[in-house]
């Protein structure tokens, strides 16, 4: 379904991109996501899986380069357009949208520093790829360190007693990587490249890290089995193990001196992404509920004729709208400043995912028993929404990180 965009400054391009992305989400992503949701994780990543139909089609149409600037072979999209497109895609499937987002992570990371060699080796081939044969992933989360690797600026981020599980040491001209990233690496099981965030200086705790690109066909790399999970089953996730994997120094995007700053830039992007993607998921859940309530008759009248349902729908709708515009603005702001105000992106993630979950929850209540069955899409949307509260930083940890940050930064000055 189309929606009214309150932004009076939308251009014809914005509207056209929105409608093209919506159509792709509706006709390609939703049906495939539904199919994948009912498969085992092994089936999802098997050669003949519809996951590949989706990925190939998305690459063919350029949806894998949304985040990459045109100068490196990506798209000439404004940050507003990026947010609009991703919202539409997430309306079709949150999990597949994340798959597509992380696929671009190594190239996106490389575009932040734009060293010649990184461009030639990783960005250009990725942008030119039309068959999903180059897929990225984001290796940051570790079995014992999930959200706490994301707490830039917080004291625990610099605690040397918190030992990382994936470390790199310089040996001559090469970095040697050992350890593992946990089973929550999105697209970890199918990726060809990893944007790896690993520790290089244990004396600095998690802050002593580097960001580098690791081609996953290097000797010493192994992968775990795809994870079997409650929601976003269309998104494969799995461990990556590194056993003395050697990469040249030229694969490094940021060393420990710039790690925290760059991580903050990355997080300001990813958490805002989770926000506007949540707007898509939230809207999908709201629309399911609205349509059902218009048709379902109980007590002799349609559900929409009951005041409590009207109120519920209104509050659900409010959250969709607030999530969209807040996340979009936070994203646009942080994409267009040299030092992002990270706490604003954190609000987008925490508020947006909470809203999507609450809306899906309320929607199921409107559906009654039908909402619990696999007959209706809302059951999947609810499970997908539940996963977002933990995905990309649990909302609790992000609130701690955000709270800590704002105590030190509020009030920020106008740009």
């Amino acid at each position, binding site marked *: 379904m189309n929606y009214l965009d309150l932004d009076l400054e939308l251009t014809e391009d914005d509207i*056209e991109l929105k409608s093209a992305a919506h159509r792709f989400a509706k006709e390609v992503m939703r049906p495939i996501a539904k199919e994948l949701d009912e498969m085992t994780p092994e089936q999802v990543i098997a050669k003949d899986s519809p996951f590949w139909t989706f990925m190939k089609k998305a690459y063919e*149409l*350029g949806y894998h380069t949304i985040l990459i600037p045109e100068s490196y072979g990506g798209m000439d*999209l404004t940050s507003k357009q990026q947010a609009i497109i991703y919202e539409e895609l997430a309306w079709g499937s949150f999990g597949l949208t994340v798959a597509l987002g992380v696929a671009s992570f190594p190239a996106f990371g490389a575009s932040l520093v734009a060293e010649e060699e990184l461009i030639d080796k990783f960005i250009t081939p990725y942008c030119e790829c039309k068959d999903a044969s180059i897929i990225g992933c984001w290796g940051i989360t570790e079995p014992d360190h999930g959200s706490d690797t994301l707490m830039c600026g917080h004291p625990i981020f610099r605690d040397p007693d918190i030992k990382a599980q994936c470390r790199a040491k310089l040996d001559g001209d090469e970095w040697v990587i050992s350890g593992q990233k946990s089973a929550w690496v999105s697209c970890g099981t199918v990726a060809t490249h990893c944007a790896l965030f690993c520790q290089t200086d244990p004396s600095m705790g998690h802050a002593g890290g580097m960001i580098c690109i690791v081609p996953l066909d290097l000797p010493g790399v192994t992968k775990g089995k795809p994870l079997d999970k409650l929601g976003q089953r269309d998104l494969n996730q799995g461990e990556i193990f590194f056993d003395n994997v050697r990469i040249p120094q030229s694969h490094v995007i940021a060393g420990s001196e710039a790690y925290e700053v760059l991580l903050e830039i990355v997080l300001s992007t990813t958490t805002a992404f989770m926000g506007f993607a949540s707007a898509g998921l939230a809207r999908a859940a709201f629309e399911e509920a609205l349509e059902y309530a218009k048709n379902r008759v109980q007590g002799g009248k349609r559900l929409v004729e009951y005041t409590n349902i009207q109120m519920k729908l209104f509050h659900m709708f409010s959250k969709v709208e607030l999530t969209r515009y807040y996340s979009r603005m936070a994203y646009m702001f942080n994409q267009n400043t040299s030092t992002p105000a990270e706490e604003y992106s954190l609000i987008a993630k925490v508020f947006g995912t909470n809203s999507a979950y609450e809306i899906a929850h309320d929607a199921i209540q409107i559906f009654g028993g039908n909402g619990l069955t696999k007959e209706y899409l809302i059951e999947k949307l609810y499970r997908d929404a539940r996963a977002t509260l933990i995905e990309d930083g649990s909302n609790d940890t992000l609130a701690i990180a955000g709270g800590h940050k704002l105590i030190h930064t509020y009030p920020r000055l106008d740009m």
Partner: protein
Amino acid sequence: MKILVTAKRVTDPDMKIKVKEDGTGVEMSSMSFKVNPFDEIAIEEALRICEDKGGEVVVVGIGSDKAQTEIRYGLSMGADRGIHVSAGSELDSDAVARILKKVVETESPDLVLLGKQAIDVDDNQVSQLLAEYLGWGQACFASKIEITENTARVEREVDGGIEVVEIDLPGVVSADLRLNEPRYPALPAIMKAKKKEIKKMTPADLGVDTTPRVVITQLAEPPQRKGGRIVEDVAELIKALKEEAKVI
């Protein structure tokens, strides 16, 4: 090879149509629109022919300013340029065919490819009328098109089989459902489409009088289905069929 294709703006077939209370038309507020799906197939086919043989695809849309959205869609799919014939009110098929004839005369394409019908009013007349007005050969409801030097060999699905017709070019072909599966516009193509030209003209520029010859006087919703009931015996069934359903 130069191919002229059409892109009509129609109501989204996935949306529920509601007739206005006074029966003068369809409720358009809160309606969404898209390119007539049969036109989309025609555009796709034109693109494939030109990708194979080289050439130019020109998309024509007739209607209000909003109709340019659908022309743009054709350009996003890959067509080279557009023509927008601005017309305020709903035109009948005959007026559309006469406008297209004039456009064809200025553009001189080798082939005109149209959707077999628009899914809003389902008239299925424009391609046939256009071929007649141009004095060109026509092959309607194409499920396969092969272009040779000066001819188009067209397969048409008919009851019980496939009919093969061959027409001279220039000619008129209309696209059926199974001709192809249209592509989705790629993001770079959407960004490029904004730089493509859409030439504007009016029926008056073309010297076409659009006074309708066919007027829709009344639209009505189909009668609501009543619930079924179980009858006692055959006699009652026959009586109901005769008196209530009036089918025997």
